[in-house]
């Protein structure tokens, strides 16, 4: 974490002090015997947007999926090292992954609304979590926050699969918001969307960053540059045995990563020389 430099007048948002939500130290992730990611140190700041970029197979999604213990669902997946959520060990023995996922929401690469009505999609999370309060207002609030309310308020009973791809993805964001998480993880949320839908999601992320901590994995460097406060650049290294391991190369304020990266590999990547 020593390479996190904080300060600089050119920084767009006030991110002087890094108020950590996640503190990752020496994280490696194994799939069986294969070490997919090796030795990651990273800090995710409260109510910031942190982007994780890098070429395919660099382990950025794998790291993201550790933050809500989604990797638990993959047989053989096993993290080593530490991830702290505030000051609680995310992989501690007492930790219930279900509670983790309620507090740390996730939006996926491909919009995955349930084959239910728009209303029931939003109401699902609050229901399974036994949330109190009037369901109608919970649904409305989530849809308003996800900037989807005006488009769907007259057809809440319609099947969510009848929405366009971009609307489906905003529905998935609304669904995540409805359970009132603290963090929203986004795994390439725009990669299946057209540019107009992408712009809407990016605008929405800026809005949401006021209330939520957002971590986004993206293939799209411009997207990282547009939306994020800090950027973590990952790459894949081939070791002597010929195995590829994801490594964190550089983690810094986004403006610095894109204007004055300290690592040659980062510079090569963002200038399009590889990846």
């Amino acid at each position: 974490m020593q390479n996190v430099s904080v300060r600089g007048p050119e920084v767009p948002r006030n991110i002087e002090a890094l108020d950590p939500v996640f503190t990752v130290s020496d994280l490696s992730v194994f799939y069986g015997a294969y070490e997919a990611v090796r030795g990651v140190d990273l800090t995710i700041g409260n109510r910031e947007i942190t982007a994780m970029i890098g070429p395919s197979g660099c382990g950025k999604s794998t790291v993201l999926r550790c933050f809500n213990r989604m990797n638990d669902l993959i047989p053989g997946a096993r993290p080593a090292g530490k991830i702290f959520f505030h000051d609680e060990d995310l992989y501690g023995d007492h930790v219930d992954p279900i509670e983790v996922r309620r507090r740390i929401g996730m939006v996926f690469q491909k919009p995955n609304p349930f084959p239910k009505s728009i209303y029931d999609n939003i109401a699902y999370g609050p229901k399974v979590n036994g949330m109190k309060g009037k369901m109608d207002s919970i649904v409305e609030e989530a849809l308003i926050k996800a900037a989807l309310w005006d488009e769907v308020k007259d057809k809440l009973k319609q099947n969510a699969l009848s929405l366009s791809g971009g609307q489906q993805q905003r529905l998935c964001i609304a669904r995540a918001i409805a359970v009132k998480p603290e963090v929203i993880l986004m795994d390439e949320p725009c990669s299946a969307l057209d540019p107009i839908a992408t712009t809407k999601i990016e605008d929405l992320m800026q809005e949401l960053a006021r209330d939520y901590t957002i971590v986004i994995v993206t293939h799209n460097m411009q997207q990282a540059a547009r939306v994020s406060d800090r950027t973590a650049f990952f790459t894949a290294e081939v070791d002597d045995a010929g195995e590829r391991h994801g490594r964190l190369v550089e983690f810094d304020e986004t403006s610095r990563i894109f204007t004055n990266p300290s690592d040659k590999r980062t510079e090569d990547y963002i200038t399009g020389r590889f990846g």
Partner: protein
Amino acid sequence: MAAQDQATAPGTSRSLARSRPRYGESVIKVVLMAAAMISVATTIGIVAALLEPTIEFFSEISFGEFFGSTTWGPLFNPAHFGVWPIIVATLEITLIAVVVAVPLGLAAAIYLSEYATPRVRKIFKPVLEVLAGVPTVVFGFFALAFVTPLLRDWFPFLDLEAKNALAAGLLVGVMIVPIVASLSEDSMAAVPNGLREGSYALGASKMLTSVRVVVPAAFSGIVAAVILAISRAIGETMIVAIAGGFKAVFTFNPTNEMSTMAAFIAQAGSGDASVGSIAYKTIFAVGSLLFIMTFVMNWFSARLVQKYREVYD
């Protein structure tokens, strides 16, 4: 290789027309079509074979008597043709079977698709499907010689007859469990993993994800599985003939001996009903009714499946 290179080399002009006739292709096409036609032709043949004696039957016995009275005994003297006792017996045994098979089959499907490790699934599913290969005569004998005495021991107050609809229905249920389980599991396994992840990411447990996301998403396939199982149960003959008996009594009490439609056909067909006699024609009339019932069932399931089908791109 070299010859091919030469042939496609620029400058060589070769016609794009077929260089030699491909007879194999047309032969295969005819053979495949014939195979497809045979099953269609068989179905049409069955309908035609059922139709004529059925029409003859109804020229002698009125619709009113067939559907309007509740005494069945076409093989007796005097003969009675009120079909309701055997319809009721058929539906009742089917109902018992469904009550057994749907919860068991669905639970097994949820276990296999959502909870079992790939290794367990790989062993378990074929074993389950072996159950579907057990000859039904074995189930029937098992019901008669084992289940009925057991039920009599455990529930003496039921006053079970030696042959009864309850034991027959239970075993028909066991027989159709693999159909429900295997086909439901197929359709649950086809639910995109993204839906499960979406549910887990909202803090849902495995049980809630299975019951409230996976099962509804696989609903059309599950309905199809259940309907197919019901069709099998309605037409099941051996178990009900052995364990359910042949006595056609108009009753809803499953502790009684009952004759289903299929059991009646087996009984009358293996007896000495002479061709052209009224008893002989009755077999076809009951056969037609059974055919119509399963046909309506299958048609209904096709409609239902269409209605609830979710299209995932």
